[in-house]
């Protein structure tokens, strides 16, 4: 049962991820990305990582992609323009980066790094892994966790400062 589901979700993930890149219409691409996130969440569920799987849907599919869609719809983008030299240059860069990634991935796979341990220890199975994740996050990974939150705060403040209209020096606040 599980291998069949894994193959199904995996195939769906690869197909939708390809469609994100290949489709011309930006809104359709964004929707395929949502599907890709959902199939990735399915794979997480199969690995007994229910918390990660559902947070994947809440955060990526439910919040971030809605904001993406919001911006795409707000800008009302037309279909991609398919001519001009800069498109050719971009295509060339894209092919090069893609080839490099493929090379890198094959190297990794041949060294046997990517697959990970055969029988990874399942942490906190009896209470579900939300508790286990919380315990690890607030003990062993507390410092990275706090640093990340600071980073996000800085990004948020930065975004607010940048979008605030600049006033010439000396002008009164309205």
């Amino acid at each position, binding site marked *: *049962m599980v291998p069949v589901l894994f193959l199904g979700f995996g195939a769906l993930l690869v197909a939708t991820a390809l469609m994100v890149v290949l489709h011309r219409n930006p*809104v*359709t691409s964004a*929707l395929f990305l*949502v599907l890709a996130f959902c199939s990735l969440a399915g794979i997480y569920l199969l690995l007994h990582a*229910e*918390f990660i799987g*559902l*947070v994947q*849907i*809440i955060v990526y*599919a*439910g*919040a971030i992609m*809605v*904001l993406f*869609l*919001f911006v795409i*719809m*707000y800008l009302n983008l037309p279909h991609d323009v398919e001519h001009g030299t800069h498109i050719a240059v971009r295509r060339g860069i894209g092919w090069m980066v893609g080839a490099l990634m493929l090379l890198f991935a094959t190297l990794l796979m041949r060294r046997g790094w990517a697959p990970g341990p055969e029988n990874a220890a399942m942490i906190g199975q009896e*209470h*579900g892994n*939300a508790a286990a994740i919380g315990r690890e996050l607030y003990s062993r990974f507390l410092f990275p966790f706090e640093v990340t939150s600071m980073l996000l705060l800085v990004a948020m403040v930065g975004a607010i400062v940048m979008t605030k209209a600049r006033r010439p020096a000396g002008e009164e606040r309205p």
Partner: protein
Amino acid sequence: MAALMNNDVFVVALWAIVKVAIILGVLLGVVTYLIFAERKICGHMQARTGPNRVGPFGLLQTPLDVLKLLFKEEFIPAEANKIIFHIAPMLAVFPAIVTFSVIPMGPPPMFVVTDVNVGLLVFLAMSSLGVYALTLAGWSSNNKYALLGGLRSSAQMISYELAMGLSTIPVILRSGTLSLVGIVDSQAGTYLIPGTHIPLPSWGVFHWYLVLPFAVFLVCSFAETNRAPFDLPEAEGELVAGFHTEYSSMKWAMFFLGEYFNMIVICSIMITMFFGGWHGPFMELLGPVFGPLLGLGWFLLKLSAFLFFFIWVRWTFPRLRYDQLMGFGWKVLLPAAILNVVIAAAWLYWRAA
């Protein structure tokens, strides 16, 4: 067949499918009469009678309305994005139905489809996916009013989802689990008001640090179901009909099916988190067969009370202005929800220490 019946996975899956089929069938009937109830209650609130012509007391009004909608001509705008135009109404119904699979409607294992150990997250995930229906319907119609409705809905639901998610945290802190069955279990029994001999049910809302989270969750639930006073995405006074301007026939009805499903889901979640789920008096007296049935009865009674409350609010409050809506969500509800988390965490830590 005998080999299959001995297979645990198969039996569990079979029971789940049977329960899902029952829930789906019952829900469709419930929604039909919920719409009837809404029209009746609204009528009496406005000193009218409401529908009373078709069948006894007008009881056949909504079934016949559904029949009419099924036979109506379906109109698709020429410049619409056809595929997404068809997908959007399905997305309105699907996430709401999925959530029913984790709601404990009575004592487990009989009245629970599945007890997932992250049940509350299933609800949050599905309610966050509900945004797509409105947003995509608005965009694919190729109509400026529809697009405005879609944009409003995506902004509104993202804003209120944050406060809603944060207001569930005090409940999780109290029960120590994300499973909805576990959350209901943590509200069993009664406790005495400190200093007196008056017993209170140990439901979430009867604990002082869960009153404010309940208020925040209640307000957010109106926004999440797009009902008045937060029905900005379909504000008929300014946007024709908002996101469903171009929809007709059964596709239009699907959005309303989704809205009523969402209403039932969010009321059930509120009962589960703050009103003790299926817990109620006299359940022990009736024994192992009728006790659970009474539990289901308590759940349905609380559900009906909440649904009446939703209808009551819809026909009482005027619609908010868009900037008021956004300001209220971000400047009042979100800080209040964060404050709740701090207060509840501090209190529970202090009490445990």
